[in-house]
């Protein structure tokens, strides 16, 4: 019997997200719990821990943007030029309007 790797996730305080903290090597879940408590919780630095056998983690690390979906993002828009043009056409300036800056 050999040891296996358990990934450790920890919640720093109530309401905080679970975040990956590191990993421990242990022969089984019971030992993994003891090691994780010792290495990631002995200083009271964690409110909760999750232990996951490494094989159980499914990783996705490729995200193809085939259809150029940048319209979902703020950086997909550049309005500066057109805003200036629109103001010029209307003959307005934000500063001169009520509540203007």
């Amino acid at each position, binding site marked *: *019997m*050999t*040891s296996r*790797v358990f990934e450790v996730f920890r919640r720093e305080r109530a309401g905080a997200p679970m975040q990956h*903290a*590191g*990993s*421990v*090597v242990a*022969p*089984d879940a019971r*030992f993994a719990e003891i*090691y994780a408590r*010792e*290495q990631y919780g*002995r*200083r009271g*630095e964690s409110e909760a821990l999750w232990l996951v056998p490494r094989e159980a983690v499914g*990783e996705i690390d490729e995200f193809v943007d085939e259809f150029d979906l940048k319209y979902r993002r703020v950086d997909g828009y550049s309005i500066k030029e057109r805003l200036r043009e629109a103001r010029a056409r209307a003959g307005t300036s934000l500063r001169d309007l009520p509540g203007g800056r």
Partner: protein
Amino acid sequence: MDGRTEEFLANVQSGGLVEAGDWMPDEYRARLTKFVEMHANSELMGVLPERDWILRAPTLQRKLALTAKIQDEAGHAQLLYRVVEDLGKPREACLDDLIAGRAKFHNVFHYPTKSWGDVGVIAWLVDAAAIISQKALLKCSYAPYARIMRKICWEESFHILHGRDIVLTLVTGTEGQRELVQEALDRWWKPLMMFHGNPIPAEDDPMVHWRIKSQANEEARQQFLEGYVPEVWELGLTLPDPELRRREDGTWEYTEPDWDELRAVVTGHGPASEERIAFRRLSREDVDWVSRTVLAEAA
């Protein structure tokens, strides 16, 4: 250098980060593994000089604090060996190499301790020197190592304070207690000046080239001198180097350490090297039945 390696190098040099499962050039993996392994070994061997003082600590409070520090350091070794394992070298192989004298650990852990003064000076100044290097490693291109370093630096924060507190208690005590600190400083200054290594320029350092390290050796030593020499002097203590002074430009001048001695010490020829490795060998044999039982039970 092939195209893939060139691309990898350009990426890490411009701040790119590498994860455990990513492809990496053999040279990067080999250098990184060796470096982190030495770091892990140092944490593990570093507890031995302090361990000798648990039973001799002067008060219960000191005993508890020292034990907590030692537990932290042993924990650092555990965290770092995990990083090494994910890079491909099993922990068992690291420990085998360590007790066979094939692996390195930091020079300061090859020296004996003589009094409680040494315990104060080690926790204060050896940990201070170490934390300077460890803080610089927060910027390491290998992200799993950098992340573990964040946890380690956080845990280290009380070690230096614990050491300084011991030193302050001794220098405000009797003449004899003050003497203990001065003697310990006299003993530890040379090894401390060697701690950050010979002043190899950053551009010639392959560890900097791959952005495993981001701080040149001399830069680390200067930071150490700037931070801690004034704190030693303000206690009326002296350091055994007549050349030691702060230049106009803020850099420190000092007597060039004997780099051959450093090389000899880290290759296992220090005054306490053999004893420490022998002790590690003995404890590995002693606890072998535990790992065998645990693994058998889990089978």
